[in-house]
């Protein structure tokens, strides 16, 4: 369990917000949203969906990741949780 103290955002909150994006934007059933789920092969997203995923994550977490190279490395839901955590942490570190 990790926690971003300044933002009061726990790992659980990141998971819940991310999963909500998948449920609402991509109409994926809750029970398929496990950390190991591959976003292309298991959840059925394609290249157009990744554009929408980026916009939805930006809006959900208040981050700017449209030109972020690391988005290309994302394969699983766990990758997204970790990526968001890292981005948020970098933002906090930058502020301090």
């Amino acid at each position, binding site marked *: 369990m990790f926690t971003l103290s300044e933002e009061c955002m726990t790992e659980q909150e990141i998971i819940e917000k991310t999963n909500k994006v998948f449920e609402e934007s*991509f*109409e994926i059933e809750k029970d398929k949203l496990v950390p190991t789920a591959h976003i292309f092969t298991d959840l059925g997203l394609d290249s*157009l*969906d990744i*554009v*929408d995923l980026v916009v939805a994550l930006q809006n959900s977490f208040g981050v700017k990741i*449209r030109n972020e190279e690391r988005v290309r490395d994302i394969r699983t839901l766990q990758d997204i949780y970790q990526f968001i955590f890292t981005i948020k942490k970098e933002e906090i570190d930058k502020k301090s």
Partner: protein
Amino acid sequence: MSFKRVVITGMGVVSPFGNGVSVLMQGIEQGRSAVQRMEDWDRYIGLQSLVGAPAEVKDEKRIPRQKRRSMGRMSIFAAQAAEEALVDAGITLAQEDRWRIGCIIGSTMGSAKSINDAFEIILPNKDLGQLNSTMFFQCMSHTAAVNVAQYLGLNGSIMAPAAACASALHAIGIGYDLIRLGRQDVLLCGGAEELHPTVTGSFDILFATSAKYNATPQDTPRPFDKDRDGLVCGEGSGILVLEEYEHARKRNAVIHAEVLGFNTTANGFHVSQSNKESMVACMKQAMNDAGVNPGDIDYINAHATATIQGDQEEAEAIRDIFGTSVPVSSLKGYIGHTLGASGAIELAASLTMMKQNVIYPTKNLKTVSPDCEGIQHVLQPISKKISTVLKNGFAFGGINAALVCKKF
């Protein structure tokens, strides 16, 4: 060179009465109006006409998300109408030569709501980063044709004539040509359009909309009537399956009608005003293409949208060719003007009337306007054997289209 024969083997409609040709016909038969006062439209400054004939988006989740995400309202309507038409035709795509089946579906423009939404997103902060990946596919002019093709998995010719209110007839005319030239076997042809205050607004600023009946919406539009005051926008989609005759015969298809002729002309003098002379030429050339005379036409389904000038010009054009010999009615009083979809929705209704040997009247036509006299207006349902129909469609831009179909 001999042309191939082209027949219509399938019909599908999403109209302000609901989904399906039978639902459309039920509404017309019962003499109902789908026109209503539009909620919240009074927040648009300067919009005089607050009435419309909306269709309902329903069962859209039956379209898989990755097919649906690029669809605005009009493409959902088109996909559902196309699906009904294909089922009606009894065509199983997997059994066909896939390179010879396509679709020609026209509209005035892309999804009006999506275009509006896109600018709402972009303009406040000049920020393109908030646009989703499929907004462009909803906004582009060939959105309905492309989305139907993607949804059904079509591989043949895909085209999207944009000719405003003549779009659907243009689509059918182009499809007719492609099949009679032997280039395609089957084409899903028609149009789609959606209702939005900005669409009504485009007519409203030209004083072409109905604005006097906001409190009694079902009394408008009133094609050919002395109290008509303009058009009422509607929405939906009409798709017809055009098929090469031998192809249809080999699979024992039920044939609704044969397409005998088509023509389109332009008035060449004014971007918004209708013009009798070019309408006359259009109808005459369509009949010439069909190899029929005015005396062969049993019913004319008029474009008549209830604008002051448009109805007058069309009535005069019909009078010049047919006098009072042929029954004429307009269906706009039931479902409003479905614009780019109107030619196909109204053709589907006309072909159904032809099958049933009945002609439904022009709803809201109580007293024929003096400037629309001299033609045989249909004021009550008529039982009549119909073999050949003429369908008119006229559009902003000075475009006219006319199609002749015969019972098979």
